[in-house]
């Protein structure tokens, strides 16, 4: 006869995901662990230890003596050895059996068990037929080799244990946490307000975010305590004080002062309020799609697309600066740009920006969730970088420092569209300007003379709940009248619309495709027919053929669906 053994409970998913509960003995062990070396422990470390402890207890319980796991449905006899997985692997011997008494359950027996290390006996149900959660353990059998190590178990089921342990520790007032680290409240060095005032001054003088370790170098805080305990206590105190802003990651807090943060970091600049992002599923002409890709607006990136990965040697990204970013002193965070910066659960990353040409250096911020960075306003002005210019960003050895540059060439004069406001409407005038940087002529926009009046128009459009199409109807004719043939390049339209309406290129080009009043005439140019503003093409075939067009120079271009959603 081949002897089979039950698979250890701690080897099963059911044990960790369904049956596992943090028991007082686990909490006691966690308490001892932290007390032992007087330093905070991460939830990961504690959860690993709890899992190892359960595995160890089970292994001990399954050692000689042929102890079997307790299940209410089984029959047990006096003298039999049992262990109780759901009670933290307590083990004991059956010392008595009697009939159970309760008509609700039918016939069953009650066993008395002398638990090791405990006085008296405890009674458990046996031969118990009604449904009971402990009867649902699978009788899985199999070879004992190939068992998962505690480390492998942690990889598979650690999340369930971490969550349960976090919940249990949160409910216990003796423990205190900070950024997934746990410590004993009784061991915390006291951080009174005087220390916090000093910390504020230290950060103020530094002018950039500091870690608790860096701040502690200048504070005489509880020198007798362990360094990790001092760091933990200071992080906890800084977190509870609304002067300090944690701009680091969960594992690496870095502290800055809210009152030193630029306004564009505290709140998105008004000029960047997103009105029309790409959503996927828009229909647009093949040529428009290519132009949108050239523009590379961050609002045209759809969720789930791949992030480009750079090798450290070639880490470089270029962006075409549009009017909203130029005005706000910000820069777009396309996926390509995001790849230049450290990844992680950052909401704001303080960085240093270096001018590649002059080596001058200043502080900036990257806001990955908001998809923009801040800190180039002064540089744009100093270097005379207009909207429409191409700006290059380069990785440096320090992941928190990025170099910025524009291709410099000899100064060249150019007739440039300059936005201005006339009769509360956005319009454009042509002015001569000279630049030394690389730019796209169609995207180029000159510095407005009265930017605050543009702000008013922008607010007015929002107040009036204008649609993107309505904005196009206002902007397109203003651009068309700047030339003799009424042609407007798609890029120029994108650039002009974004003066008052923050939109990706794809939504604008999709409106061009949908509405019969716009017709493509080649080389990225479009024309406008005011008499057809009420006509909408609803199918891709119509958008392609444009049956209502009166233009003889109409070009027929394939219409494609943007993104995966048709």
């Amino acid at each position, binding site marked *: 006869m081949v002897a089979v053994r039950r698979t250890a409970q701690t080897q099963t998913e059911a044990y960790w995901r369904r049956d596992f509960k943090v028991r007082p003995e686990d909490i006691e062990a966690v308490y001892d662990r932290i007390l032992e070396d007087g330093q905070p422990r991460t939830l990961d470390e504690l959860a690993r230890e709890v899992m190892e402890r359960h595995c160890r207890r089970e292994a001990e319980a399954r050692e000689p003596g042929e102890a079997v796991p*307790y299940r*209410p449905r089984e029959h047990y006899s006096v003298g039999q050895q049992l262990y109780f997985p759901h009670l933290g692997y307590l083990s004991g011997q059956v010392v008595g059996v009697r009939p159970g008494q*309760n008509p609700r359950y039918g016939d069953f027996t009650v066993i008395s068990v002398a638990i090791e290390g405990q006085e008296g006996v405890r009674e*458990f149900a046996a031969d118990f037929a009604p449904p*009971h959660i*402990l009867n649902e353990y699978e009788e899985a059998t199999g070879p004992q080799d190939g068992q998962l190590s505690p480390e492998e178990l942690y990889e598979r089921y650690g999340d369930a244990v971490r969550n349960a342990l976090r919940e249990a520790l949160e409910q216990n007032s003796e423990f205190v946490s900070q950024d997934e680290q746990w410590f004993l409240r009784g061991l915390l060095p006291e951080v009174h307000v005087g220390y916090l005032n000093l910390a504020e001054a230290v950060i103020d003088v530094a002018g950039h975010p500091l870690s608790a370790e860096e701040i502690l170098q200048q504070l005489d805080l509880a020198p007798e305590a362990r360094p990790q305990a001092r760091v933990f206590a200071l992080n906890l105190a800084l977190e509870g004080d609304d002067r300090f802003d944690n701009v680091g990651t969960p594992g690496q807090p870095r502290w800055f002062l809210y009152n030193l943060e630029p306004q564009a970091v505290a709140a998105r600049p008004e000029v960047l309020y997103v009105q029309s992002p790409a959503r996927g599923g828009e229909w647009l002409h093949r040529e428009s799609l290519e132009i949108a890709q050239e523009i590379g607006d961050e609002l045209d990136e759809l969720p789930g697309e791949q992030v480009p990965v750079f090798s450290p040697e070639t880490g470089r990204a270029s962006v075409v600066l549009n009017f909203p970013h130029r005005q706000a002193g910000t820069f777009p965070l396309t996926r390509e740009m995001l790849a230049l910066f450290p990844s992680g659960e950052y909401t704001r990353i303080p960085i240093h920006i270096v001018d590649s040409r002059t080596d001058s250096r200043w502080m900036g911020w990257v806001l990955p969730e908001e998809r923009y960075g801040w800190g180039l306003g002064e540089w744009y002005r100093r270097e005379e970088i207009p909207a429409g210019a191409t700006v290059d960003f380069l990785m440096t050895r320090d992941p928190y420092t990025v170099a910025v540059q524009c291709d410099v060439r000899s100064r060249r004069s150019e007739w440039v569209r300059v936005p201005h406001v006339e009769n509360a409407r956005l319009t454009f005038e042509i002015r001569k300007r000279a630049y030394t940087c690389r730019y796209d002529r169609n995207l180029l926009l000159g510095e407005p003379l009265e930017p605050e009046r543009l702000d008013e128009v922008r607010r007015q459009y929002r107040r009036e709940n204008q649609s993107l199409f309505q904005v196009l109807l206002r902007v397109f004719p203003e651009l068309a009248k700047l030339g003799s043939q009424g042609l407007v390049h798609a890029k120029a339209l994108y650039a002009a619309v974004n003066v008052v309406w923050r939109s990706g290129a794809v939504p604008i080009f999709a409106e061009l495709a949908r509405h019969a009043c716009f017709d493509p005439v080649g080389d990225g140019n479009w024309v406008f027919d005011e008499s057809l503003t009420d006509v909408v093409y609803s199918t891709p075939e119509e958008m392609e053929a444009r049956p209502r067009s009166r233009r003889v120079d109409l070009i027929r271009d394939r219409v494609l669906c943007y993104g995966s959603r048709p």
Partner: protein
Amino acid sequence: MARWLRPTVDTKFHIDLEWWQKQNRDIRIYLTQSLCDECRSAYAELRDLGEVDWVDPETGEVRREDALWSTLRTCCSSKPGYIKPNTPIIDSIFLTFVANGNEPLSPRELHERLDRRPAETILRMLTAGQVYLGIRPVN
């Protein structure tokens, strides 16, 4: 020497069975009033049983308890209408203790379960002087 501490919203209370004895009152008479219709008709059988073995649904551990109390806890208390919206708050507290096997609960926990009066009001009610239905702080 034990020190008397003023109860707070976190002080644990329970039904003090000694109080019922000292008052010469039979808690079982009070408990029978809360039986559901089904169990009320089988009450005679329950009364004769005295104590029964109750099996913990999570651990399988067996506890001897009064058959009437056990029935209330495992059957009647899970039925709609065990505590009605118009049940007086003090009766609701008593029935809550019956339903959980007289495990001690604080006014804060009672408030969370009953969701009726604030924890402070429950505390004042239980400590105003008169002991209602034997509900007292756990010593």
